[in-house]
């Protein structure tokens, strides 16, 4: 067996899922699993309990709200990619989701899972941030709306409480000028550096512990990206400028 032992739970309602998350110690929510299962396979994550939400009906809808689009917890990234509503109301989300890994991964991976996982190099958290969207979390204590700006706290860290389930994310309409650009070593890899533009707003990803808003006129100000085998900090700062120029050229 590759993953370390865990107890498996497959609730069939949001209420049951929240009750489990509220009562279990060290539980992890399993949605698309495209980030969590690799972590389990490598035993980088060893939660005592897995709460698999895939058996919950009617949690995979994509629907209109306040002019924008709500994406529920089990809507697969491929469904968002193919959604006519997303193309109409929030085409920026449609562009961003196409940059997430590969179609075969997107067939299973979820938008809400990407948000909750909070990889700093991920496209979707930065997209929600630049659009000023929000997330809806449910627990036995009630429902909480969390603006994107208050959600991401550090690498893989969010303000989602251990007993909360991220049930949906709201992406506001994007009628203004929008664009997303990133540089990665291979197609479908996480970005070395990337940026997403909406109007005059710019959010960067891959260059800080969380997605960050930046000044398009001086995008590298205050940034201290980390270096690794794939890119030095200086190269990442260079890419931030390149990407920003590209986003605001049009």
């Amino acid at each position, binding site marked *: *067996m*590759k*993953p*370390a*032992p*865990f107890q*498996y739970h*497959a609730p069939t309602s949001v209420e049951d899922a929240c009750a489990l998350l509220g009562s279990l110690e060290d539980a992890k929510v*399993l949605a698309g*699993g*495209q980030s969590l*299962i*690799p972590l389990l*396979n*490598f035993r980088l994550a060893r939660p005592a309990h*897995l709460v*698999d939400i*895939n058996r919950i009906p009617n949690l995979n809808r994509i629907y209109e709200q306040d002019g924008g689009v709500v994406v529920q917890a089990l809507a697969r990234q*491929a469904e968002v990619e193919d959604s006519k509503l997303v193309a109409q109301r929030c085409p920026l989300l449609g562009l961003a989701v196409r940059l997430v*890994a*590969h*179609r*075969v*991964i997107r*067939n*299973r991976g979820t938008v809400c899972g990407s948000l909750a996982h909070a990889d700093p190099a991920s496209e979707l958290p930065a997209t929600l941030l630049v659009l000023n969207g929000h997330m809806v979390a449910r627990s036995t204590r009630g429902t909480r709306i969390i603006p994107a700006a208050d959600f991401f706290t550090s690498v893989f860290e969010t303000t989602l409480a251990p007993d909360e389930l991220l049930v949906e994310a709201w992406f506001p309409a994007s009628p203004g000028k929008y664009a997303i650009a990133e540089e990665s070593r291979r*197609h*479908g890899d996480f970005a070395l550096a990337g940026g997403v533009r909406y109007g005059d707003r710019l959010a960067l990803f891959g260059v800080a512990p969380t997605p960050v808003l930046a000044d398009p006129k001086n995008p590298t100000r205050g940034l201290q990206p980390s270096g690794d085998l794939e890119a030095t900090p200086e190269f990442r700062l260079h890419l931030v400028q390149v990407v920003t120029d590209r986003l605001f050229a049009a």
Partner: protein
Amino acid sequence: MRVNGTVHPAPTDPRRLLSDHLRHDLGLTGTHVGCEHGVCGCCTILLDGAPVRSCLMLAVQAEGHEVTTIEGLAAPGVPLHPVQQAFHECHGLQCGFCTPGFVMSVVGLLGQHPDPTPEQVEEGISGNLCRCTGYASIRRAVHRAAELSKP
């Protein structure tokens, strides 16, 4: 879960990955296992008709679903599936380790785009790694598969 048309019970241990369940419990060793973190694409199977990574799913999650592996595309003795035939004709493989994953991804790709553009072919096979062919013959095979799939 139903695998290639036959109903099988799910494994008792929830830690069993779908890829390992197919290979070790059901003996369907056509599904190959490479990286086990979703990068190489060797373990790609169809879940309810859509290609997914079997190493990134627990076998218990496939309960109630339809799984198709490379063995399920064409039974022994009957003509190859058009995608298999195209890989054969265009030399879309050398060592063959990545081939089952490529074939299953391409089945999914042609379901989505029956007449794919070169860009859609590139995008469609970008999630599968091949260390032998250099991809040129695989690209040709995908276009040939689209031709062969036409009624």
